[in-house]
């Protein structure tokens, strides 16, 4: 079996002039891209042994693609990290994944500070490259670890999803099949590459020799609509927030771009928004509603566009190569229409959590991924998600671990107890809310927010803070977070 890099190299040999990635005013062909990957990969392999981990702190860019695939050329494991991370967040990933190198830009002072504090060599991407090739061909092998994506950065229970080259290829081949992607396609990507959905969009399109256009931030949505038109792309991908901004905050609907496909994942999209989005699309555009998670590389199910109306609200059917079953509380498979935990089996299921065998054992049992999502299968085998068994907050394109925020806030001396959960939000799906027990005062609430702002990425900072005399608990002392989420009163 070939790795993704070998596939890229093959495309570069067959069509070296074909454009691979467009980033603002710059574009790079497949031939040039592979050349840069090999140069950077060679530089890496001179500095760290095969199988080592390498932290990448790079924004969506051609440089990111070169660094990611360069890691694979050198046979090292890439650990992509949010370039907007605070120092503390990068440090947690670094302490846990023990990288041989940190690759970033010296302008990313947070990454540089962590490298210096821990004595880890720092490679300034802007100065690297151009070294003589040390290895004639890619060092990566099909079953090797390719990528670690952290979904939770708590010091007590870090969850770095380890994906092998085989995992990546299995998911890519399935997605390419149902989206019918070809080298004639081009996609505008606004999703962060360091997360599974953005990583998937990038890799699936490069796999078929298509063009990836790096889009602007959804913070300025009209720019994105303008880019869809200007670049004449055939595809676009987003989370529900992306779609809401596109439809409600731009002139997308008045002159819909002639896309071939638009894909949505990253949390359930309301029926209302699904209908409004579908109605705003050009007649020739197919809307693919999808579902998955990082532990499954990215994708588990897809809803065939022609059945969208009939199965509105469904996450669809398993992608090729994936089997689903719904498990009841007694561990047995439940019948049609009965709600239980969604379990998945396939070659795309992660290898393990990095350095966390306990979490791996409880999440992947006999090959079956326990998704933590609740749902049922209808009589046609279509999956309907009914909620989450786990407490992760899904906000915009991000998944946030409440524990990480609780751990931070609990360290303040005026806090006796803290509980963090997601509360519904029209734009972002959910936002983070913090419920506090302790020495209540506006100044202390502000101190909590200030600490979070300094220590956490923006999407993790609580949008709501509320003081409570006590937190609701079960008889055994377990927090009843759903009660908290439903009882929110005050805005921060």
């Amino acid at each position: 079996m070939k790795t993704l890099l070998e596939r890229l190299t093959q495309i570069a040999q067959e069509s070296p002039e074909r454009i691979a990635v467009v980033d603002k005013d710059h574009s790079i062909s497949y031939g040039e891209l592979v050349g840069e990957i090999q140069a950077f990969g060679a530089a890496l392999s001179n500095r760290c042994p095969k199988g080592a981990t390498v932290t990448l702190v790079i924004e969506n860019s051609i440089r990111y693609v070169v660094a990611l695939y360069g890691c694979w050329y050198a046979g090292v494991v890439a650990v992509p990290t949010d370039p907007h991370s605070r120092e503390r967040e990068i440090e947690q990933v670094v302490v846990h994944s023990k990288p041989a190198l940190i690759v970033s830009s010296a302008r990313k002072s947070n990454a540089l500070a962590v490298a210096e504090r821990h004595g880890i060599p720092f490679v300034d991407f802007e100065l690297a490259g151009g070294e003589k090739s040390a290895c004639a061909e890619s060092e990566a092998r099909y079953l090797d670890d390719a990528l670690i994506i952290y979904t939770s950065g708590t010091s007590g229970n870090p969850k770095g999803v380890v994906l092998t080259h085989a995992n990546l290829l299995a998911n890519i081949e399935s997605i390419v099949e149902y989206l019918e992607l070809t080298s004639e396609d081009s996609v505008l990507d606004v999703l962060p590459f360091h997360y599974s959905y953005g990583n998937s969009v990038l890799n699936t399109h490069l796999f078929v020799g298509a063009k990836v256009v790096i889009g602007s931030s959804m913070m300025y949505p009209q720019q994105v609509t303008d880019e869809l038109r200007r670049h004449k792309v055939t595809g676009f991908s987003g989370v529900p927030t992306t779609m809401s901004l596109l439809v409600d905050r731009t002139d997308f609907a008045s002159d819909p771009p002639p896309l071939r496909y638009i894909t949505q994942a990253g949390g359930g999209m309301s029926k209302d928004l699904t209908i409004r989005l579908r109605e705003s699309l050009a007649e020739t555009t197919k809307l693919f509603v999808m579902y998955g998670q990082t532990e499954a590389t990215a994708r588990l199910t897809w809803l065939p566009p022609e059945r969208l109306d009939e199965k509105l609200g469904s996450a669809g059917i398993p992608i090729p190569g994936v089997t689903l079953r719904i498990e009841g509380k007694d561990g047995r498979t439940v019948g049609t229409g009965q709600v239980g935990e969604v379990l998945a089996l396939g070659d795309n299921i992660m290898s393990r959590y990095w350095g966390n065998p306990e979490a791996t054992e409880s999440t992947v049992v006999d090959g079956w991924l326990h998704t933590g999502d609740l749902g049922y299968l209808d009589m046609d085998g279509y999956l309907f998600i009914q909620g989450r068994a786990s407490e992760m907050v899904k906000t915009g394109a991000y998944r946030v671990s409440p524990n990480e925020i609780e751990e931070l806030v609990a360290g303040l001396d005026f806090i006796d107890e803290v509980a963090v959960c997601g509360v519904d939000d029209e734009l972002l799906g959910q936002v983070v809310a913090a419920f506090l027990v302790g020495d209540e005062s506006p100044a202390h609430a502000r101190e909590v927010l200030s600490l979070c702002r300094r220590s956490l990425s923006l999407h993790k900072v609580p949008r709501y803070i509320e003081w409570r005399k006590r937190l609701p608990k079960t008889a055994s002392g377990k927090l009843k977070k759903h009660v908290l989420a439903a009882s929110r009163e005050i805005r921060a």
Partner: protein
Amino acid sequence: MQDTIEPRTTLRTLILEDYLFTDDDTALIDDMSFLDEGILDSMGILEIIMFLEERFQVTVAEDEMVPQNLDSINNLLAYIERKKKAA
């Protein structure tokens, strides 16, 4: 009611207090990009737009939601100025 506080001070106070949660005036430089520095996100920028509309009576059209108008204190001030002149 006409705002008696200078717009620059009003906007700086808003960002410092409601988004950076600090009273350290040096934490915000007036040409700092809200996007690049991770100061605002999609929701934050919508809140800023609502603030502009309420406080400065500026209506922000969809095609005006671009970094050149909104992505720093200086850009916001210049944008408000242009809108006031055009009104």
